[in-house]
């Protein structure tokens, strides 16, 4: 299958949605599940093939448009398609318990969101990247406003305004690049980026940094992020946390290493990541709204990832990618379980954690929390220790101390929630999870445990990804069309 | 050995009671009285053994004095009485100074258990005061003992005695430690100013409020045994032990009279005052002595 189908299929399904709707909700839901399954299975198939893979459209790159799949994008492809499968199944439950919601509207944008995210990680020219960026943007604005109430619309508008700012910066950067180099192909830009006048190059880098950093929720640009999480439904939160934010992060570091910025800007990104981590975790302490709480937690984890991914050492980056995968799974788990809780208790206050009675959900949340905190034998531990090990190997002890100290702050609120769940006092409402969710949450929890106990299953791919990210010669060859 | 033990117990019994008689006499003379005969305590104990118990609060009440007496006897046989003879040496070589330090508390524990069983709050109050006072009392004493142990590099009492034969008496070598130990001893003998646990005036007789008949007799007897043991310990540690019975009596008497004279002069401290005092001056004296041991010899 050509890589192009990764984009085409969801778009086709998305455009056919009104037709599916006429055929009944079963077809509508089924089509989405089918789509995500196809994409996921295809992604798994790619794990056995030789990488990088390329699909070109009509003209050979660097002139034509092409999709390139290397080790780095393969990891993200797996994460995104897997998340899509899980969320599409979850929506079966969601629309069953909320029968009056507009299903078609969700699926249109859901499918397009997947298409855009995958497009962002596969595209090897910067203008297409921008288009996918905008597609993801539009879909996420709409999805965050899926609840057409005051909160939902407010979050939609806020997201849209921020998105517009980010896109202006990115358009500006792309134009400057084109003016300087005269190409939009990532390979060519990467080859000739050092030729640009240093002052212009600083401007371009800053604009890309602001553009993607705003979307990837870095510190001084992330004041909007918790609002968006608060205003949207839980499954969308899960998507934001494990797909959308990760896609922007992907692009950020893809360009970061491709353009060879790591030596010059490493410290800067690391410091920004550290500040993001610190501020988010401290802010999270004071939250009373669960969605905002987990939003801050996501921001914090992104901070760690930015710290670790910018190090330019394959050990740390591999660890960071492991951590990223594990964080995606854990956050998906938490947000989906949270959706069930919010549905039953009709509140988003933090106190709902003390008000429900379900041993299953307690265990699920506990696994998610422990994994995010990096406690063995769950998958978060392996990621965290790999990151710390990487920092240790580069003798960056202050980063180790920083991560560990702030992790204690993180533990404060996660264990406060755990303690509330375990607390026996007060009246407790029984929460029925539902069969589909039971399976879904079990699968996610099992993955967390399996990756924690047998990390070599995943480390193979993260190593591949880290090497492809730091050392993009293979990618460049394909992006330039040399290898064809 | 059994014969020797019996002999030792009898000796301690007699000497202990006579000393107590002496104590009562000296006290009386200082206070301008005649006082009882010197054997009065001995008579008292014989009398009490044959008298009726007024109350019995159950088996722990029964066993408490016995534990106390056991502790006293055990202490007695582990202290070397004569420095050069083999008298009870096979028993004394089984223990050491640390064993003694802890055995000395076993007696009070038995007492405390029995008093607690008795259920008299005043008795328990006395016990608690005693234990609190112990915190202060032990501190200078421990420092003194530790100083000697480090000087001799051994916790074996016989070894400490032997050291003094060649190197001179500890009272001369380590006078500060001796002074500190003596101040503690005043407390261990229940003398003023550290006699608050007994509190003879305010709350009957403190911990012993509920005891009567044979238990009181047992307590008195073990008290005299224990007093003798403590005196012997002091002369072993500081005065080079005694090589004959006469020397033993002479040295113990000297120590005993010193303690009485100190005790008679002072008024009583409250328990916190006692501990405060003991933690300051005697402790300081002892620490100076200790510093001397560690850095100068």
């Amino acid at each position, binding site marked *: 299958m050509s890589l192009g189908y990764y984009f085409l299929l969801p778009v086709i399904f998305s455009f056919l949605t009104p037709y599916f709707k006429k055929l009944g909700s079963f077809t509508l839901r089924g089509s989405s599940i089918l789509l995500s399954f196809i994409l996921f299975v295809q992604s798994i198939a790619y794990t056995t093939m030789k990488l990088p893979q390329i699909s070109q459209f009509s003209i050979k790159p660097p002139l034509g448009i092409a999709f390139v799949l290397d080790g780095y994008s393969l990891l993200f492809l797996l994460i995104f398609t897997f998340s899509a499968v899980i969320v599409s199944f979850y929506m079966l439950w969601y629309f069953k318990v909320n029968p009056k919601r507009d299903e078609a509207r969700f699926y249109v944008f859901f499918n397009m969101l997947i298409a855009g995210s995958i497009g962002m990680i596969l595209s090897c020219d910067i203008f297409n990247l921008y288009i996918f960026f905008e597609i993801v943007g539009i879909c996420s604005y709409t999805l965050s406003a899926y609840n057409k109430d005051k909160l939902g619309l407010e979050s939609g508008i806020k997201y849209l305004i921020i998105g517009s*700012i980010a896109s202006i910066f990115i358009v500006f950067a792309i134009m400057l690049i084109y003016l300087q180099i005269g190409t939009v192909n990532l390979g060519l830009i990467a080859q000739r980026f050092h030729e640009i006048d240093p002052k212009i190059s600083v401007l371009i880098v*800053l604009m890309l940094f602001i553009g993607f950093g705003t979307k990837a929720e870095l510190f001084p640009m992330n*004041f*909007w992020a918790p609002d968006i999480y608060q205003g949207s439904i839980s499954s969308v939160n899960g998507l934001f946390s494990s797909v959308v934010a990760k896609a922007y992060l992907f692009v950020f570091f893809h360009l970061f290493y491709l353009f060879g910025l790591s030596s010059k800007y490493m410290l800067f990104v690391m410091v920004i990541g550290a500040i993001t981590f610190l501020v988010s975790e401290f802010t999270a302490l004071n939250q009373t709204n669960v969605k905002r709480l987990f939003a801050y937690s996501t921001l914090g984890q992104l901070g760690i990832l930015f710290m670790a991914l910018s190090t330019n050492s394959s050990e740390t980056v591999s660890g960071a990618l492991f951590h990223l995968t594990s964080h995606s799974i854990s956050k998906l788990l938490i947000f989906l379980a949270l959706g069930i809780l919010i549905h039953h208790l009709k509140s988003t206050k933090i106190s709902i954690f003390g008000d429900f009675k379900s041993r299953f959900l307690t265990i699920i949340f506990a696994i998610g929390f422990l994994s995010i905190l990096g406690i063995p034998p769950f998958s978060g531990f392996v990621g965290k220790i790999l990151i710390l090990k990487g920092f240790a190997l580069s003798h960056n002890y202050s980063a180790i101390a920083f991560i560990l100290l702030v992790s204690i702050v993180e533990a404060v609120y996660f264990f406060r929630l755990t303690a509330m769940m375990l607390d026996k006092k007060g009246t407790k409402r029984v929460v029925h999870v539902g069969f589909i969710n039971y399976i879904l949450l079990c699968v996610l929890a099992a993955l967390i445990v399996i990756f924690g106990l047998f990390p070599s299953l995943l480390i193979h791919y993260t190593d591949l990804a880290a090497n492809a990210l730091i050392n993009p010669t293979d990618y460049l060859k394909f992006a330039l069309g040399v290898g064809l | 050995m059994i014969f020797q033990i019996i002999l030792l117990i009898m000796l301690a019994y007699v000497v202990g009671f006579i000393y107590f008689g002496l104590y009562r006499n000296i006290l009386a003379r200082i206070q301008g009285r005649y006082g009882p005969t010197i054997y009065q305590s001995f008579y008292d104990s014989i009398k009490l053994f044959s008298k009726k118990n007024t109350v019995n609060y159950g088996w722990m009440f029964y066993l408490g004095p016995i534990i106390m007496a056991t502790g006293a006897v055990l202490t007695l046989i582990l202290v070397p009485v004569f420095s050069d003879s083999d008298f009870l040496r096979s028993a004394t070589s089984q223990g050491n100074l640390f064993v003694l330090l802890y055995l000395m508390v076993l007696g009070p524990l038995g007492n405390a258990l029995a008093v607690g069983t008795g259920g008299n709050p005043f008795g328990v109050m006395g016990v608690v005061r005693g234990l609190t006072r112990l915190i202060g009392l032990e501190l200078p004493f421990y420092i003194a003992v530790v100083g000697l142990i480090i000087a001799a590099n051994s*916790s074996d009492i016989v070894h400490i005695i032997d050291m003094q034969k060649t190197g001179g008496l500890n009272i001369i070598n380590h006078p500060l430690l001796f002074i500190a130990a003596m101040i503690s001893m005043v407390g261990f003998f229940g003398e003023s100013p550290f006699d608050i646990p007994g509190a003879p005036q305010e709350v009957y007789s403190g911990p012993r409020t509920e005891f009567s008949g044979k238990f009181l007799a047992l307590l008195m007897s073990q008290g005299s045994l224990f007093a003798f043991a403590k005196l012997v310990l002091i002369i072993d540690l500081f005065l080079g032990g005694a090589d004959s019975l006469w020397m033993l009596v002479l040295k113990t008497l000297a120590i005993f009279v010193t303690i009485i004279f100190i005790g008679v002069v002072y008024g009583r401290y409250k328990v916190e005052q006692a501990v405060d005092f003991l933690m300051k001056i005697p402790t300081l004296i002892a620490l100076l002595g200790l510093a001397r041991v560690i850095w100068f010899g």
Partner: protein
Amino acid sequence: MNSIFLLLNILPILFLYQFGGDLHVSFSLTKDFTLSLIQTPLGTFFAYLSLISFLLVTVSQKSKKLSCNYYALQLLLSFAMLIIVLAGDFITFFIGWEIMTWSSYFIISKSNNIDIKSLQKYILFSLASAFSLIAAIVISYSFANSFDFATISASFKSMPFDIQLTLIILFSLSFFTKAGVIGLHYWVVDTYSKAPDLFSSILSAVMSKMGIYGLFLIYGNIVGYQELKIMFGTILNGTDFGYTLAWIGVATSIIATFKAITQDEVKRLLAYSSIAQLGYIIAVIGFGTTYGVAGALYHTLIHTIIKLLLFINVAAIIAQTGKNRFSELGGLIYRTPVSFVMLLIGIIGLAGMPPLGGFASKFMMYNAAINTKFALILIGMLFSGAASFLYCYKLVYGIYLGHPTSKGLETQKEVPLSYLIPQIILALLLVLTGAFPGAFVKVINPILTQFSLKALPYDGVGIMDSAVGNFNGLFIMSAFVAFFVLILLLISRIKSKAKNNINRFDISYCGEVPSKDTSLHYGFGFGTELHRIKFVNAILKRSTATFYDALALQTKRSSELLSRMYYGNIHNTMIIILLFFSALFFIGVNS
């Protein structure tokens, strides 16, 4: 349920016995991490210690209706501890350490009187300990390129001094937190007192020992006592390092002892006593001499036995009466006589009095201090020991002696047999260790060899031998028993009539007759007079809670301050982004 898990608890003991010291398993987690289990004499000692403790506690849990997942978590905990003590590399060690942390957390959360604050205290301190541990682990990895104990130990000598020092401090902090050194003990008391009653025994007897194991591992195996001597130099006859550590231990011991005396809750007293006893161990663990290590190991054993005994005893009483304060208990001696005797044996051991095992371990530690001429340390330990008599007496008096202070205590029955059996076994162990202190030398000697220290002399099973004096436990025990029986016989020969079973108000009470409403129990008055002693009051009125509460408050305030930034005014957010860009641009262009 109980019997199934009892069997499951026996299995690892058999397993360990089967291997008999030759266990060596490794399992490759990834290409970098290899998990390995290696049986060392030290690990075996701690493994048996923890496994047998778990077995005994499981026996006593028979009368409690506990759920399956409680037992499962407890089994997981024992498994985690087994991993810790058998670990051959730091990753395995850390995995065991963290599983221990969270499985115990979930067990503690099952208690009826736990609150969120105590749970938070427990888990945050545990995590802080774990994070300090992992920091030390990765730093040592950066030099040794391996997590293996042997490799790290070999490359430790070549590390720069400041790294060596950092590593030792980080490792020590981690294990100190687990053992509850003063200043880091904030979690200990609340957790021990609010955990399920029987689980407190595990916490105090076994889990805190994992901290001790870690200290042994670092000082003895990883760094090596010889290396410590070279690193830090010597003072008197010991090392500077040992001296510093000894002061930490002694301060812990003294402060915790005084705090223990003033507690009203039974388990809080025991918790502080546990801190104090571990203070002794920490005081001698760094000496790096034969007697120091032997004393620490011996006291580890004795403290495990005693704390298991005392906590099980107290748990039984709490389960039976429903009261957990000294001010609510009292006068149970003739209602629960067997329990009373067990507790009595326990506190005699705790106070370290001669006929029982408690003395032997203390003697060993004192010898260590004399050997190194650490006189002040020795005095500190003796002083704390003298003060500990007070809380020992409070324990036995407050629960069993005196007068009952609340209704229902007069009609109590003896506690169930399942509680008594482990207690009797432990009390026997205490008696045996007291009578045969030399037997333990054979256990210690291989460990001493492992640390390349001189072995202890062995003069027979009853004798504890040391360079500065020895004592014959068997003689003292038999003399004690003989004199006791003799005096008992003599006294009982003297016939004297006495009123038995008299009214409990029939006491000398200043010429008055106390009534039912008169408060006759002195249990909760204990320790109040200590406040009037200046030195002790200085200890008692200070608390680490002030510091940690202030820390929590400041964290909360800074969190509030930071979260103001996020009160979503999108207009401001836009302006911030634009300003941030402009600022970066000017910085970037100008540099």
